[in-house]
């Protein structure tokens, strides 16, 4: 098991370095680092001096090393657009995105898993078919369309919920949160549903198809042949075997929520890192793009690791216990 952890760690670092490489490439060769620091009419000699000072004339591998060093310390230079330090911009907006993703994840799991189990156990009921149909719509509609629809109905027509912005937040040190007030929570509702809906349908479909597969296995048949009750079979044997493979896929999907948030944030004018990224793409603000890339890479790698470890905990076959022989 230790070997496994070490191997995964090594893989994660490899992935991070690759992402870092792409980031570095973006940062150094597509953007112009000098431009982010000085104005248009700075004389060439000064630029050269600055270049030297910043180490921009060093050989590429050395620069890459510096880049990684700086990245590890969270230093990504200044934004082309606002001339603010990129790391500060990101940190400012990170809580908004994280809270939104968290709520969306909870929504997707809390509704998706039970719906998936239900439609998997009773696939022929009309309610199951209805859920299936709704899920098809959920997968087909682009997230931004769902967001617009929700805004149209609940904000513009019914005036029940706010249509944009983060609403009321409180600050705790560096973190700003919506969770401390009703108004704050209200602002979270529509965006969370929008962000979580796609994942919800994915989870529901996955759980359903796993459930259908499991119900066809020999051990379920044998369990029935032993006269076990439906409850024991459905919620004991079947559920556990269904959820185990679902865990990995779900975990990874939820990780991607953080990245997918960028669309929802744009629709709802939610001030998160996703919205920041979109703005940076529109303005070709390379330092922000590079920093966002590394951030997402780091988050994904961490989530992947956690999911892999979870797998260990849940599936006894992976724990590498020795097989005892005999006939």
């Amino acid at each position, binding site marked *: 098991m230790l070997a496994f952890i070490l191997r995964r760690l090594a893989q994660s670092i490899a992935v991070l370095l690759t992402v870092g490489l792409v980031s570095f490439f973006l940062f150094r060769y597509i953007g112009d680092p000098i431009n982010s620091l000085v104005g248009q009419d700075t004389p060439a000699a000064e630029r050269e001096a600055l270049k030297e000072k910043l180490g921009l004339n060093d050989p590429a591998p050395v620069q890459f090393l510096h880049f990684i060093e700086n990245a590890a310390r969270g230093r990504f230079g200044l934004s082309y657009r606002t001339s603010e330090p990129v790391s500060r911009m990101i940190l400012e907006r990170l809580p908004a995105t994280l809270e939104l993703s968290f709520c969306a994840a909870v929504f997707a799991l809390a509704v998706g898993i039970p719906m998936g189990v239900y439609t998997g156990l009773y696939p022929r009921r009309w309610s199951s078919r209805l859920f299936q149909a709704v899920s098809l719509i959920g997968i*087909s509609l682009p997230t931004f369309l769902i967001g617009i629809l929700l805004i149209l109905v609940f904000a513009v027509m019914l005036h029940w919920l706010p249509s944009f912005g983060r609403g009321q937040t409180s600050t705790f040190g560096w973190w700003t949160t919506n969770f401390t007030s009703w108004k704050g929570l209200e602002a979270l509702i529509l965006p969370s549903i929008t962000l979580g809906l796609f994942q919800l349908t994915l989870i529901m479909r996955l759980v359903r198809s796993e459930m259908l597969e499991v119900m066809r296995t020999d051990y379920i048949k044998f369990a029935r042949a032993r006269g076990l009750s439906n409850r024991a079979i459905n919620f004991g044997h079947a559920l556990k075997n269904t959820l185990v493979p679902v865990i990995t896929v779900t975990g990874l999907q939820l990780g991607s929520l953080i990245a997918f948030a960028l669309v929802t944030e744009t629709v709802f004018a939610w001030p998160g890192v996703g919205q920041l990224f979109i703005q940076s793409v529109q303005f070709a603000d390379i330092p922000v793009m590079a920093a966002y890339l590394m951030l997402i890479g780091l988050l994904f790698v961490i989530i992947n690791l956690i999911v892999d470890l979870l797998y260990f905990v849940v599936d006894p076959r992976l724990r590498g216990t020795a097989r005892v022989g005999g006939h």
Partner: protein
Amino acid sequence: MADGTSWLHRAADSDIWWSFKSSSLTVLAAVVTVFIVLAAFLSPVLAPHTPFDPSTLSLSDGLKPPAWMADGDWSFVLGTDDQGRDVLSSIMYGTRLSLVVGFASVVVSLVIGIALGLVSGYVGGVTDSIIMRIADVQLTFPAILVALLIDGVVRGLISSQRHDEIAPFVIIGAIGLSFWVQYARTVRGSVMVEKNKEYVQAARVIGLSPVLIMVRHVLPNVTGPVLVIATINLALAIISEATLSFLGVGLPSTQPSLGTLIRIGNELLQSGEWWITVFPGITLAALVLAVNLLGDWLRDALNPKLR
């Protein structure tokens, strides 16, 4: 198999056609898709107006609601936007663009994916490792992010104006590049299986190009799975393009796709002019839904386990 019955007869008799006919939902989806595609591609002929030719626009036509409402005008059946552009015609032209970009990016993904898969599987070694590592890293990121990144890079390299001029190509490339991985993996797997078979080695001994032989044997094997991936891919590509355009980094308002139209309309949503967003939205939703239904049916029909 040459027994005199034409392939048409055989097709009509086949399992696939039977399962198609028996699912009325799928037939409906097919009809909707055909309708939308035809309307889109015949837009120069069928559209009542030319909304993207500025000379035909007049601001006094602006912000007309749909024809059945008060203030509506039957020459602008679905209403107009703030520039006086007819919504119905915009939708038709926009759908055409959405479809073209969607299909083209699937083709791009296919070509890149199959090519890289063949190379990776056949050559093996370091090349294979590198390609697969890139694939793994790319897979950790959602496709939309990859597409955005590529678009951002292009914008960093050329001026914004130039970018807008060649926007469809940039978008096709961006989306195409974000979806190649699945194809590559499937093809690579198949190649690796075939590579070790004796007929390949035999071919080498005879002096025939084993690559050609392998392609002849590998490609038929992967057609099924690749088709399945492509159907999922098509819906995703259309959604991706719409999303990019909605976010303002896709097709510009001078050559709008459905996503762009929705974005334009979104800005007017708060003031109550809903038709500029809603109708393109409905069209987009119907299109993607139909494509997904067809894809679902195709996947079930091709799945040997369900026969």
